[in-house]
């Protein structure tokens, strides 16, 4: 290849593509150039820490190796072969340690600390510094999640660069200068942003630590168990840090195609839900005094009784967070064992998108990305938001059609916006057609679970271009996997029993869903499979304790169509779902293994082309695209959807737009440290609507609709389309679709 260059490093010749970073070039020759500030995922190198000083032939001064790229004929000497470079490196380490407190014995980072490691390998054995070290107040709460120790900080600026250059939340900054420089948030406000926790992992010392993990474990008594996050449809690869059978921490496990090594705060910090106070650890049956604990034998007997009693008149409400194995096992029991085919799936899904499959990381190199839908991307699939920001920094055009988008459309306008893209003369549509790397994203409800999106992608010819594709951002972590597993369990058609003999509520999201509660009112009996007492009380006749995705082996299908392996990181306080489902299935003459691996093999043959489960270990790969098949037509696009909602109704009424915030749901609600990340009880109004009502940000407003009236704090959202009032689901109470908003 012509663009390979030869570089001599410490008398070792190495050939790499031109432009490869010198740190990576050296690494490919087995030579370490030690670094602190260098982190390619944060953008261009800044050469601040000076740990990487090397000698380059022809240049009189030592050079920061991290800022150099491989050039043909370059001759580099690292500290291993150059006295001058070694002196430079020693100088840097000595300077870094001059004010570092060396409190490694009580530092969370101790044992897994780059500063400790590099000091061990290259550092001086003693200090020549006889003056008092700088002492500072500590720890500083950067937020309820992150503690800052400024004495330990070596000012590598990784955290501030993440904040400004990756997440673009611009909240962590350096203030003051020289030796007074310190990391801080603006005016010491809490660092409130979806990705704040990444700075803990980026910190090469113990300056930024997790308040949840502080003083919880030493690195030699922990295990990092590789798994994937089961909280959203991205499926970020993670390591669960386990100590004595308890999850203590969640870390990113870089899958370059899926998450790029980033993790949102929901994925990182919600693990304490495992030990929530109202966690159910034994089966419960409804008795005279409400829910009463029973033994597992009695519980399964009661379950069998309820199942037999209802027969085919069973409806199953699924959460979409079950593993494919759990969903399949449940489906085998109910559909094969009882002929009960009726299921309420959490959302529609479509296989048509498989023709436009590509890794999420492709977004970063796209020329144009068009997003349609009512929801913010970060609320549905947080890490996708980071890929989009990367794309924008790389020069991509990003267009979002939605109530808060760059091109404002009313709620429910996604399908109409997509349709417009295919019409001739549509600017973004034309550019999607002509670009080599064009990406479409559906971020919201409706649209046939990506079916509408697939049609548009097909109309724009995206399946023929390897760098182009389409993503539907589902509402649930494994909605598609669950639907596939349910469908694969039996061939018979679904029927809608009326009345419902038994409602089976699978999982906490389903249990928390008001629509499922409505269904329960029509059911004679309810079995709830849930983790938390509060979600079972008052409606379930039998409660079977559930496990979390951190506690079970299994498989998830993410939004790209990538199957990824969940691992049991800790032993759950309750039996695995597959264990008792297998037991129950046996009572209905259905053979079902209690082992996820075996269940997966059976399911894979039926639903996933027979993919071998062992291939999903490590970082799973994305299956090839399938040929495009037109989806079954769904309901036609409502023409009114694109019209301004205020035109539809008499003046004064606003269309209520509910959204499900990233920081919501049964798990988040059970983690106190995350409370500050949850949306406050506020109503977002457009500038136009607020002005018309003389409402300013911070004012209390009354929101009324058809007999319901609630008080919220108003906030002007300049990016919101007029005629719409936006509110987080959890604060919307029973408000109807159209509301009156009056200043209090």
């Amino acid at each position: 290849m012509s663009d390979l260059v030869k570089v001599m490093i410490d008398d070792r010749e190495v050939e790499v593509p031109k432009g490869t970073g010198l740190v990576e070039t050296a690494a490919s020759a087995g030579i370490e150039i030690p670094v602190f500030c260098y982190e390619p995922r944060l953008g261009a190198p800044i050469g601040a820490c000076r740990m990487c000083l090397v000698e380059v032939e022809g240049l009189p001064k030592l050079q920061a190796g991290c800022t150099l790229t491989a050039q043909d004929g370059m001759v580099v000497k690292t500290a291993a072969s150059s006295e001058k470079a070694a002196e430079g490196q020693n100088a840097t380490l000595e300077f870094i340690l001059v004010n570092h407190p060396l409190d490694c014995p009580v530092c969370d980072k101790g044992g897994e600390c780059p500063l400790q490691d590099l000091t061990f390998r290259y550092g001086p054995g003693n200090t020549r510094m006889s003056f008092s070290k700088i002492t500072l107040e500590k720890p500083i709460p950067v937020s309820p999640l992150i503690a800052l120790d400024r004495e330990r900080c070596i000012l590598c600026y990784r955290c501030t660069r993440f904040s400004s250059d990756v997440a673009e939340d611009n909240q962590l900054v350096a203030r003051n200068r020289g030796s007074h420089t310190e990391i801080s948030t603006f005016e010491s406000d809490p660092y409130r942003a979806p990705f704040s926790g990444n700075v803990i992992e980026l910190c090469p010392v113990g300056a930024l630590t997790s308040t949840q993990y502080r003083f919880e474990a030493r690195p030699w008594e922990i295990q990092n168990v590789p798994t994937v996050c089961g909280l959203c449809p991205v499926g970020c690869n993670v390591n669960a840090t386990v100590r004595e059978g308890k999850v203590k921490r969640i870390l990113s496990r870089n899958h370059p195609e899926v998450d790029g090594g980033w993790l949102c705060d929901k994925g990182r910090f919600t693990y304490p839900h495992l030990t929530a106070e109202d966690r159910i650890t034994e089966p419960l049956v409804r008795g005279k005094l409400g829910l009463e604990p029973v033994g597992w034998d009695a519980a399964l007997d009661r379950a069998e009784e309820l199942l037999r009693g209802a027969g085919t008149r069973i409806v199953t409400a699924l959460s979409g967070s079950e593993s494919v194995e759990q969903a399949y096992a449940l489906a085998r029991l109910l559909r094969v064992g009882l002929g009960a085919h009726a299921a309420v799936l959490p959302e529609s899904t479509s296989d048509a998108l498989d023709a436009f499959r590509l890794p999420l990381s492709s977004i970063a190199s796209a020329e144009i990305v068009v997003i349609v839908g009512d929801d913010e991307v970060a609320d549905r699939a947080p890490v996708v938001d980071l890929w989009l920001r990367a794309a924008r920094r790389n020069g991509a055009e990003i267009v979002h059609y939605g109530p808060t988008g760059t091109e404002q459309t009313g709620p429910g306008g996604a399908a109409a916006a997509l349709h417009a893209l295919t019409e001739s003369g549509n600017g973004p549509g034309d550019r999607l057609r002509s670009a080599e790397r064009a990406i479409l994203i559906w971020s919201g409800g409706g649209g046939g679970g990506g079916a509408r999106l697939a049609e548009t992608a097909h109309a724009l010819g995206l399946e023929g271009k390897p760098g182009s594709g389409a993503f539907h951002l589902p509402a649930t972590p494994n909605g598609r996997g669950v639907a596939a597993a349910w469908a694969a369990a039996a061939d018979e058609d679904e029927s809608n029993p009326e009345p419902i003999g038994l409602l089976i509520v699978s999982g906490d999201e389903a249990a928390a869903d008001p629509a499922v509660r409505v269904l329960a009112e029509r059911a004679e009996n309810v079995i709830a499979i849930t983790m938390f007492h509060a979600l079972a009380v008052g409606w379930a006749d039998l409660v079977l304790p559930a496990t979390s995705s951190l506690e079970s082996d299994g498989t998830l299908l993410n939004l790209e169509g990538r199957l990824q392996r969940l691992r049991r990181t800790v032993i759950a306080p309750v039996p695995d779902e597959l264990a008792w489902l297998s037991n129950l299935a046996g009572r209905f003459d259905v053979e079902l293994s209690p082992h996820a691996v075996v269940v997966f093999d059976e399911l894979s043959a039926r639903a996933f082309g027979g993919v071998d489960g062992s291939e999903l270990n490590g970082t799973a790969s994305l299956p090839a695209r399938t040929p495009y098949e037109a989806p079954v037509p769904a309901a036609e696009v409502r023409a009114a959807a694109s019209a301004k909602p205020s035109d539809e109704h008499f003046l004064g009424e606003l269309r209520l737009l509910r959204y499900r915030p990233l920081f919501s749901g049964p798990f988040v609600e059970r983690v106190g440290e995350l409370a500050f990340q949850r949306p406050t009880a506020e109503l977002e109004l457009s500038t136009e609507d607020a002005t018309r009502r003389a409402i300013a940000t911070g004012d209390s407003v009354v929101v009324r609709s058809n007999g319901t009236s609630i008080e919220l704090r108003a906030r002007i959202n300049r990016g919101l389309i007029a005629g719409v009032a936006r509110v987080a689901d959890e604060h919307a109470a029973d408000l109807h679709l159209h509301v009156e908003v009056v200043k209090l």
Partner: protein
Amino acid sequence: MTAPRPEVVFAGTNGGTLTEIAAYEAVGGFEALVKSRALSPDEVIAELNASNLRGRGGAFFPTGRKWSFVPKPDKIDKPHYLVINADESEPGTFKDREIMLRVPFRFLEGCLIAAHAIESQHVFVYIRGEYEAEFDVLESALEQMRAKDLLGEVTIVLHRGAGAYICGEETALLESLEGRRGQPRTKPPFPAIAGLYASPTAVNNVESITSATTVMEIGGAEYAKLGVENSTGTRVFSLSGNVVTGGNYELPHGFPLRDLINDLGGGIADGRSLKAVIPGGSSTVVLTADEANRVTLDFDSLVGAGTAIGSAAVIALDDRCCMVQLAVRVSQFYEHESCGKCTPCRVGTKWLTSILQKIEDGRGTQADMDLLVSVAERINGKCLCPLGDSDAIAVMSYFDKFRDEFQAHVDEGGCPFHGTSSLDHLLAPVAMHVHNEAVAHA
């Protein structure tokens, strides 16, 4: 008197100012601009190259070559920027402020000539925040030029700095101008390729740009006749320290340093004797009195003496000056102004100051003397930008040339001047330009 003293930068002022446009035009103002605009950009650059005008900010880089590094607009589809570094902050340097005060039009005319040469329509003048009068004069001058429609397609923006020495470093200046923390960038890429807003940018000093006007007025060849080989033209020297009449003196390069101090500066004040001279701003290597008497004020002579012409700030020190105290004061300055981005500068300048203070206080040991050298060497050449290096270089030069004085502090367990040392009229201590108690430690 020795050599002739042609006035180029201050030509036509007769010791006064040219702040009214009519007065400036009366002495031939804007003729160079008209002439330049009639030429192609390449022809203007050729004229600058012929003059061998070199940067007056400190690095002495050929101005014409700097402009020629800016890619032609058809090579790169981005705006081109001219940024003027008017953030004059090097201790001892006060020439640019006088230029802006007395010949604002010659300076602004130079901006327009440079903008023409690099085909830029956007000029930013980054002016030191403390320079209020200078800012007002420039604003008024710009207003007068706009009224006469002299700017053409060019926009000139005056941007005031917020008080950081580091923002005189060109990449830190660009960061600050973009609204970020004033911290240097790694180079490459150089500003000529990716400067302001990642676009091609020429960054020039006020005096360089003002001199460019003269180059275009009298022609490069004629300009090159001034001064000496390799150091053509005149230079505005800021003379300060223990002399009778300090101030700015425009002199041709090659002028004897001795004559500047003794003749123009009226010699050493109070009947004291010359001890040493800092020839080019606080960042340069100090000269002993003997060395100072032998050098001329030009690039080659000063480099030959192991120092540099720098920003042409000549600071004369008399025999009352304790070199350790001077070192403390200089090092405090760099410690205070360190931006905090790179480790050796942020940590090293503070450590160096502490060691120097310990020696000055009489608590220093022989080991501290060695440590002083070692820490300075560990700073020098390891930093991201020249700031940290400057501290080390300056302090080491005091140590090397006045080692006995440092040694006496250790041997006597205190300052050998016993409180009689005076740094009056030398560099202002950090505490004088700091209102923040937290940083005004000593």
